[in-house]
């Protein structure tokens, strides 16, 4: 039986980068001006405005440093796969490849988290719907 599909297959991949092959990679991008960004888009570079061929996909390693975290207690009422049941923990992570991103964290509680900690990606199974089981990306203590 194959593993459940990725919830956001354009945003991250099962495979890691060569730097961290065991950590699912994030699908970022790089502009000819040098800016590295996440997620990938071809609308245009937020720094220099170049678009089209100037923007290329760049896999970003799923490793970074925790900047801050917060537990979410209130359900905003979106019954979507992408949002876990409350309470859940959100974190801000400075990726080692550059961009600072926000992600849902896998942790028993915030007590085990502290700014400055090494964090890394993992895929977790999430609730299924008529379309089948899914896996979504989380960051966890490395």
């Amino acid at each position, binding site marked *: 039986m194959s593993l459940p599909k990725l919830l956001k297959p354009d945003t991250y991949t099962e495979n890691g980068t060569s730097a961290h092959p065991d950590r699912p990679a994030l699908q970022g991008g790089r502009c000819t001006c040098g800016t590295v960004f996440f997620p990938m*888009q071809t609308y245009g570079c937020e*720094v220099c405005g170049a678009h089209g061929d100037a923007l290329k996909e760049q896999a970003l390693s799923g490793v970074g440093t925790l900047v801050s975290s*917060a537990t979410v207690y209130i359900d905003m009422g979106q019954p979507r796969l992408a949002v876990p049941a409350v309470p859940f923990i959100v974190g801000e992570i400075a990726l080692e490849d550059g961009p600072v991103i926000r992600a*849902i964290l896998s942790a028993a509680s915030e007590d085990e988290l502290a700014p400055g900690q090494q964090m890394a990606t993992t895929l977790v199974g999430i609730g299924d719907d008529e379309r089948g089981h899914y896996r979504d*990306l989380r960051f966890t203590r490395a």
Partner: protein
Amino acid sequence: MTRNLNELSPVYVVGVGWHRYQHPSETTYVTLGLEAIRMALGDANVDWQDVDSTFFATGLLGMAAGRSMLRHLGSNGKPIAHIENASASGSTAFRHACMEIAAGISDVSLVVGVDKREPVGRAYEKNGIVGLADEAIAPMTHFALLTNNYAHKHGVAPEDIALVAVKNHRNGAKNRFAQRQKERSLDEIMSGKPVAGTLTALQCCPVGEGAAAVIVASAAGIKRLGLDMNRAVRVTASAASSEGACQGAGADAAITTATMNNALTQAGLSARDIDVLELHDAFTIEELLYVEGLGLCGPGQAIAMLKEGAFDIGGQMAVSPSGGLIAMGHPIGPTGVGQIGEVTMQLRGEAGPRQHKGARKGMAHMVGLGAVCYVHILEKD
């Protein structure tokens, strides 16, 4: 060569009005708006037929709200423009009304903000870019992350940050137009419903509806209509900006610092000259970040000043004398307009139990999703 607002013809706020900000109800937006407008027209001693244009701020009402409300003042055929700029809708409407007066295109303009709590539709969610957790992060979570970051970086406790709410609820209790008019102890605030991180419900602005209106006029309009110049307050600066590239989580604070300083430069003032400050305190952490952005103190130092009473009514500079977004409320469209109204009342000496004595110079600040930032300075001779 571009120019600042105060290099054009002088602009004055001559009338202010509100419908109390309140919990969502069956009251129509028409009722909310008309009450605020009639109060402002009465305060200004201006006839609706003398108003040359209207700038209508709303975040949530949907298309074409204006004329269906304004016609009940007696249709006057004058231009109506609707302005949406998320939380900063009212501030944006105010800026553009001021520009129209300053340019000499109109002598008298109405700025009115009206909103009812509808489902919040955010256009940018349709941008086709799928991040890791965008659906899971509401503003409360964004500011909870900033709160924890600030607490960790500066070694302050959640209780210290919550003191902002103690002050703002105390101010709101003196404001008959505020949504929340109840003093709250620190204990009540900390033991309330947890929202995200260390933010509890009373540290966050409420969901609500309401309306606020101000009338702006030129010197020529004031003279022609025989309005009272002694109660007119001059708009001496208008500054606006949007988020730069890669500013990330610190964008609101960064653009606030830049835009507040831009406004001060325009008015030829320093931070210490400001007597009253209304700012975007949707969450307690924001008041600390933006007061530090103003430059009154360095990063992490605002709490010390807060504890000394520096930001109380009667302190060094009254911050959120209306009760702020936390206690006055944040119905969205009205909020920025209501801030101008509060600053005007303060500078006129008409703020009653909320009066900050000797207030001569005031600042109003809002940020909005985008992010965008708007800062105005008002002065009384």
